[in-house]
């Protein structure tokens, strides 16, 4: 084996808590990356993946510091290196693609200025050459409008595109090592597939060495040469991809892989009854105020009908920006629709949260998509969970404390976390605190907006088990928003497919695997990565046109520009509803045409 490009030995990273206590995040980690290989760091959320990845740049997040061990990249020792050395190295020898590209782009600079900045700082290229190279990278990363995208500001570009732009920024200096930190976690499958494809091609073509952080084994299978399995800041197992995925040795690795295997669908409980619990009829909603005729300036949801019965799980899927979260916010009363009615138990439910009774509010709870911002950074975890207990159920402080501990345990979090502030949790931990808070209200309906997106398979499975159990025991109903089709298949009774703010299809879980489907549903199902190296190269979905930035069209089918089966009518007229016993599909083509051969 050649000399490693990067190695970490006996790395120890600690953080200082708010009260001055020292918290060990990474006790003792050792690993190395050979030139030209892609090493994946996998492990549960909070296991120190991001922390270790960042240490390869000689960097520790605020509040943390590198307390011991050796770090060497491209022959340079980073532990204890002076600021100049590190500055020369970062962005030049080692480049970083952040977990959330949206947050890592400076909102007030143009994309081009930020992408070429590393090249300019390190003097590898002059401005003109750098811009040329950036455009070439944009093209290689399959970004739409590669010549013009640079002039835009970050908020004018979709999340998936930003992730690729961030990769372009990392690659512009031809670094020896690129670190990808969960670059596709927040993306829907159709976008994810594109990003993955782009990364893989780039890494291969440029011969770059990469460290790829993720908790998604299917993604790992596509991209990694070797895998390091992390837990509690320690490397549990390190080996080639095939070995870890198909012959894991360590117990934890085995659990991880087992959890990633397709789940048996949950059995619908007896409690499901036919009375609808929540109904939305003809909902129209949008942002940016209303026009004179009362329609929203930017229409995000258009004519949505949804109904959820008691104890039923409705999965909602669709690509990023299609309006899934908006739908949940409408149901929660946070975003009054401009048209349409909401019913709870058949009785009208006010579209405005302020006009709803406390009991109505309790019965419909929402788990917010961004765990980060949905928790008050100044309120301790315990207090956050205790608030609904006091608010809806009038629990006193003492009984609330016991209940908080129980809830934390339900979502597989240690009771000690109750004393922490949200800033001291990892992404997945925050997500589960959010869930626990919603459960504390003892609702009838839970609006779950991407509750497992940041969780590793083991914990995600535990959380899903919990949800299914609650449904069985208490008859809890869910609107389950996700981009993970695997999960939708496993947990929902019905699936609602949204495209650009309109319903493309509603189908039962059992109907999902066969029969007639909207072309978009088909694209989605084909895009779910499989736990099988080489899938990425074979899947037909990889050539399905640019994802992201889908716009609702005033007339006609919004999917028409991307649709392989589009006919003239698609552009001009609203698609009709095709009804089969277990599905409703909104499409101009006939059921026969939509049924795969």
């Amino acid at each position, binding site marked *: 084996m050649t000399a490693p490009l990067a190695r970490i030995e006996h790395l120890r990273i600690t953080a200082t808590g708010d009260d001055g206590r020292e918290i060990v995040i990474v006790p003792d980690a050792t690993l190395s990356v050979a030139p030209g290989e892609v090493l994946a760091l996998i492990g549960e959320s909070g296991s120190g993946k991001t922390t270790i990845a960042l240490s390869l740049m000689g960097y520790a997040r605020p509040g943390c510091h590198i307390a011991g061990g050796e770090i060497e990249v491209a022959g340079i020792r980073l532990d204890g290196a002076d600021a100049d050395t590190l500055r020369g190295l970062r962005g030049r020898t080692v480049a970083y693609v952040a977990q959330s590209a949206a947050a890592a782009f400076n909102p007030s600079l143009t994309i081009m200025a930020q992408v070429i900045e590393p090249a300019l700082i390190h003097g590898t290229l002059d401005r003109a050459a750098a811009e040329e190279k950036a455009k070439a990278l944009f093209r290689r990363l399959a970004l739409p409008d590669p010549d013009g995208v640079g002039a835009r500001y970050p908020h004018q570009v979709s999340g998936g595109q930003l992730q690729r732009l961030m990769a372009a920024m990392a690659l512009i200096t031809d670094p020896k090592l690129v670190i990808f930190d969960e670059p596709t976690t927040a993306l829907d499958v159709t976008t994810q597939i594109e990003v993955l494809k782009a990364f893989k091609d780039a890494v291969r073509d440029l011969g770059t060495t990469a460290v790829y952080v993720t908790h998604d084994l299917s993604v790992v299978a596509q991209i990694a040469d070797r895998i390091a399995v992390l837990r509690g800041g320690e490397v549990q197992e390190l080996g080639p991809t095939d070995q870890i995925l198909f012959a894991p040795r360590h117990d934890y690795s085995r659990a991880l892989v087992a959890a990633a295997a397709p789940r048996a669908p949950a059995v619908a409980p007896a409690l499901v009854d036919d009375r609808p619990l929540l109904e939305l009829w003809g909902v129209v909603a949008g942002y940016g105020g209303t026009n004179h005729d009362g329609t929203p300036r930017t229409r995000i949801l258009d004519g949505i009908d949804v109904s959820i019965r008691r104890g039923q799980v409705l999965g909602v899927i669709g690509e990023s920006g299609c309006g899934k979260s908006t739908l949940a916010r409408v149901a929660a009363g946070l975003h009054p629709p401009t048209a349409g009615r909401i019913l709870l138990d058949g009785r009208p439910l006010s579209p405005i949260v302020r006009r709803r009774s*406390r009991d109505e509010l309790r019965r419909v*709870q929402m788990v917010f998509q961004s765990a980060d*911002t949905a928790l008050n950074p100044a*309120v301790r975890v315990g207090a956050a969970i205790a608030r609904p207990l006091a*608010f809806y159920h009038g629990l006193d402080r003492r009984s609330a404390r016991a209940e908080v501990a129980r809830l934390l345990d339900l979502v597989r979090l240690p009771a000690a976390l109750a004393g922490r502030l949200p800033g001291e949790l990892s992404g997945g931990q925050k997500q589960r605190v959010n869930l626990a*808070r919603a459960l504390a*209200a003892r609702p009838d309906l839970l609006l779950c907006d991407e509750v497992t997106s940041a969780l590793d398979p083991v914990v995600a499975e535990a959380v899903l088990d919990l949800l299914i159990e609650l449904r069985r025991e208490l008859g809890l109903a869910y609107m389950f928003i996700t981009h993970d089709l695997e999960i939708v298949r496993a947990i929902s009774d019905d699936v609602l497919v949204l495209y650009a703010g309109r319903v493309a299809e509603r189908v039962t879980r059992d109907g999902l695997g066969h029969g007639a489907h909207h072309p978009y549903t088909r694209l989605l199902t084909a895009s779910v990565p499989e736990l099988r190296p080489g899938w990425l190269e074979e899947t037909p979905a990889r050539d399905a046109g640019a994802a992201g930035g889908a716009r609702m069209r005033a007339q006609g089918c919004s999917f028409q520009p991307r649709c392989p089966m589009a006919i003239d009518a698609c552009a001009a007229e609203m698609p009709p509803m095709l009804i089969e016993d277990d599905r409703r599909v909104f499409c101009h083509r006939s059921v026969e045409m939509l049924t795969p051969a």
Partner: protein
Amino acid sequence: MRGLGPSGRIGLVLVALWLAVALVGPAIAPHGVGEVVDLDVFGGISRAFPLGTDYLGRDMLSRLLVGARYTVFVAFVATAIAAATGILLGLAAAAGGWIDVLLSRAFDIVIAIPSLMFALVVIAATGASIPVLIGTLAVIYTPGAFRTARSLAMGVMALDFVAAARARGERLPYIVVREVLPNVTGPLAADFGLRFVFVVLLLSGLSFLGLGVQPPQADLGALVRENIAGLGFGAAAVLFPAVAIASLTIGMNLLIDSLPGRRRR
């Protein structure tokens, strides 16, 4: 105390010192505040008069010991009232809607009324007393606190955890006090420290107008002001009250800056 860090501890000591002076100062003052004890004026530091004498030949140490409580308490209470009202209304306004429009306009108007006119009208309408002085100071400085709190809270109000609280059915007071406030305490505390300084200074101006602290008593700022004639001789009577103000306000700000929870900043 341990969590404060060295500068915070210095601040705490200074503030505690002035608090002690404010509390027991009048009891330990060696002479009466209005008593002329020295036939010469602007006397220097001496055994009999450790801080010299003032423009009428009164003992500076006694005047400082007795006067400190006005600056410490009046300024503090006035700032606290201004901050409390300004912050609460500012937070409420951050929720938007007609409350915001109403409050913002109202405070713009208050800002626009010249404080001299305002003070004169207050004196004419209510007469002079310490509560009126405190009220006047508070009214003059509330709009500033309001604007600061509002702009800080606007950012927080847009965040998801506020939406979460709304979805739970929380009322505006709870949202404002329990969800938003804890997230802006740092900058608000810093603002409080600065506002306290301004109030200390304005206090001396208003008591000079006749709006509260009456002779022979004088707050620290007024002590500087009334002895300014001694500046030409480098009189101790100007120097010490000025140093007193600076040490009090600096101490206060050091303490505020190092309060727990703000250290990370």
